[in-house]
């Protein structure tokens, strides 16, 4: 059926669904409305981000002051987790499980659900002019499956022996032979999270393909939608191999099979009672087959958000829309054939390492193009510096640093020196923390007025921005130096055992200055945690108390989500839109205003605001 254009459709809709009468549970909890689901995803994943950060806050104490009790939180940990934190000191097991869970939570429970599912759910149907996602009930299922996965992960902290301890990469045989239950729960949790992502990916793809408004051709899609489209493809096709791997590792753990266990394994000095014949490298292949595309899952939605906010605040069209889209596709395709650059040190021969080095370097080119497009877009603009724009601009530089430092890692000959050092930690945190997280913050500040009808405080937004920017760099820049000095990651004592003081006259020990920078980093990390307080307060306070928006389109934007009532009702649009133009028609010569919405037929017309609230 076709979209109806009659102005009655809104009242018609209200009549059909009678959402006014919907109960609390079906409206806010088991909702099938993409906006509610988006907000559910958003709140849950922000809480997980905070949780992941708190874990790291505790770990940073151990790194800065190894072996000393954690003030205030130490006794608390001891109460909750028992001997793993006896005397308030974090044990090595606890450190490892916090580390593994920090990675897991940040990636699978924090960024992916926030960047892909939350923003995607809220914004994509609005931006393409659709009434909802294609499969609303699947959408709800996807959230709840994610939720269950999250609960399983959280519960695993309280098991005897604690949560998973083998790193977020869960390399076998270590992951298999650790006798505690944490890893088993991790695997089960992952299977839920993966299933949730798969459902989400199917839904997003079907929505973008099927529900675009009339006139919304592929090349008129906002870049954010494109980013979500490619991301969904990555999830759809890269996650299943990890699911298979998860099933196999679960078989190994529960039924004693040996998918990832070779013959002749000695576990604590005893020959393991397994059939053997498996391959530890198989796990790594399957894991990285997902995990490399996964890193683009972490970054692409962020890039999409950045493109939206950038154009909105330079008040001009994006420079080179097509090359952006093609680069996106290039990244998407190539990301499936670079995974073994995480495995250079597993004993790779020349031929295959040449292959993977080459693809790794090729994939950096589209990233360079995307960044270049963003930079050139600045030229000739009329730049407004609001909070979301500040975060966006910072994203560009921070992602730049993170991306550039990926290059040396891409050369296996250099990786020989940098592999598994803090250089790698610094590399990817620059991309995900001040990179993606900044883009997500920008997105929150930008779309907040649409979702709530109120602005977040600009002043506190700026405080949040500048403190976060400075502290993020104080945390992650010194890690490059630590890495170059040879400090390995996943070190319970922050490298003290390998330091020059512990190892007198031994070459290759870590200089004291490197150990000392642990303290600097940790202090910065705790301050960063404090610096989030203005944001959290701002976020909740503004829901009720923030400045009200005067129009449905407070940022004078062109894309369709701003052409709805605020907040958009169930069914989204008062008048279903027809699209006449590309997404970023800012400062069009001859237009009445400096922006022409996508659904505006006549550029001379003053954009009307649909303040028809009810």
């Amino acid at each position, binding site marked *: *059926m076709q979209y109806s254009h009659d102005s009655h459709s809104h009242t018609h809709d209200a009549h*059909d669904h009678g959402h006014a009468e919907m109960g609390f549970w079906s409206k806010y909890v088991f909702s099938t409305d993409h906006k509610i689901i988006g907000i559910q995803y958003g709140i849950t994943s922000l809480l997980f981000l905070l949780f992941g950060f708190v874990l790291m806050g505790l770990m940073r104490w151990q790194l800065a002051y190894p072996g000393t009790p954690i003030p205030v939180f130490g006794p608390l940990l001891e109460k909750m987790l028992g001997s793993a934190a006896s005397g308030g000191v974090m044990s090595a097991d606890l450190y490892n499980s916090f580390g593994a869970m920090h990675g897991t939570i940040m990636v699978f429970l924090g960024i992916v659900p926030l960047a892909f599912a939350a923003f995607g759910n809220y914004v994509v149907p609005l931006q393409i002019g659709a009434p909802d996602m294609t499969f609303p009930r699947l959408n709800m299922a996807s959230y709840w499956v994610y939720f269950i996965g999250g609960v399983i992960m959280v519960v695993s902290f309280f098991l005897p022996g604690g949560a998973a301890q083998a790193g977020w990469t869960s390399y076998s045989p270590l992951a298999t032979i650790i006798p505690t239950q944490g890893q088993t729960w991790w695997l089960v949790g992952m299977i839920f999270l993966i299933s949730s992502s798969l459902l989400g990916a199917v839904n997003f793809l079907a929505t973008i*393909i099927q529900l675009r408004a009339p006139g919304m051709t592929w090349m008129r899609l906002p870049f954010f939608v494109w980013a979500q489209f490619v991301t969904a*493809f990555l999830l759809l*096709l*890269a996650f299943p*191999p990890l699911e298979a791997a998860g099933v196999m590792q679960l078989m190994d753990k529960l039924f004693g099979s040996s998918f990832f266990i070779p013959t*002749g394994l000695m576990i604590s000095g005893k020959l393991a009672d397994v059939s053997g014949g498996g*391959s530890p*490298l*198989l796990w790594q*292949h399957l894991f990285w*087959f997902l995990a490399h595309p996964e890193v683009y899952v972490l970054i692409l939605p962020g890039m999409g958000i950045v493109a939206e906010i950038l154009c909105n605040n330079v008040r001009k069209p994006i420079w080179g829309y097509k090359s952006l889209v093609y680069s996106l596709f290039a990244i998407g*395709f190539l990301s*499936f*054939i670079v995974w*073994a650059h995480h495995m250079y040190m*597993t*004993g*790779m*021969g020349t*031929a*295959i390492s040449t292959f993977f080095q080459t693809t790794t370097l090729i994939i950096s080119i589209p990233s360079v193009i995307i960044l270049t497009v963003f930079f050139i877009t600045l030229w000739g603009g009329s730049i407004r510096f609001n909070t979301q724009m500040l975060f966006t601009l910072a994203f560009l530089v921070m992602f730049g640093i993170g991306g550039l430092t990926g290059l040396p890692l891409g050369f296996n000959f250099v990786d020989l020196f940098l592999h598994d050092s803090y250089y790698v930690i610094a590399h990817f945190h620059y991309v995900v923390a001040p990179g993606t997280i900044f883009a997500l913050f920008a997105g929150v500040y930008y779309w907040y007025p649409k979702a709530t009808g109120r602005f977040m405080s600009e002043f506190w937004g700026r405080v949040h921005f500048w403190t976060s920017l400075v502290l993020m760099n104080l945390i992650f820049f010194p890690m490059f130096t630590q890495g170059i000095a040879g400090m390995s990651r996943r070190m319970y004592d922050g490298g003290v055992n390998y330091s020059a003081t512990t190892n007198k006259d031994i070459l290759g020990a870590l200089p004291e200055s490197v150990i000392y920078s642990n303290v600097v980093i940790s202090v910065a990390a705790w301050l960063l945690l404090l610096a989030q307080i203005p944001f959290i307060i701002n976020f909740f306070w503004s829901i009720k108390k923030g400045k009200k928006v005067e129009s449905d389109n407070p940022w004078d934007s062109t894309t369709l989500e701003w052409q709805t009532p605020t907040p958009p009702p169930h069914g989204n649009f008062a008048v279903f839109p027809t699209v006449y133009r590309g997404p970023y028609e800012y400062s069009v010569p001859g237009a009445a205003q400096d922006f022409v919405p996508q659904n505006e037929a006549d550029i001379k017309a003053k954009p009307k605001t649909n303040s028809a609230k009810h």
Partner: protein
Amino acid sequence: MSHSSTPSKGHSASHGHHDVASEVRRYLIIFAALCVGTIVTVLASYINFGSSTMNIVVAMIIACIKAFLVAGYFMHLLSEKKMIYAILVATVFFFAGLMYLTLWSSEPLSFIHHQSYVP
């Protein structure tokens, strides 16, 4: 959810009444072909084609033909829309990448490690 959509007269564009009737016959032919294929696979596995690799190749060729019949006719892939093809082409590309690269990387020549304790 679609109760108010215009009541449907006739059939969807791709499968009219008559098409379907004639397709039914085709389904039966394919059924026969699949059964024959199954028998052939089993028989072929009793023949030595020279090496185990050759036997695998033969079996895989037959399996691919059978798969083609199922996907092409039962799943109507041969007359499917471009969008579906696009999705499947991407999938096949990644599938091939996964299979080929893991296989390649487990060849002794591509990694310098050796498979047993004796170097």
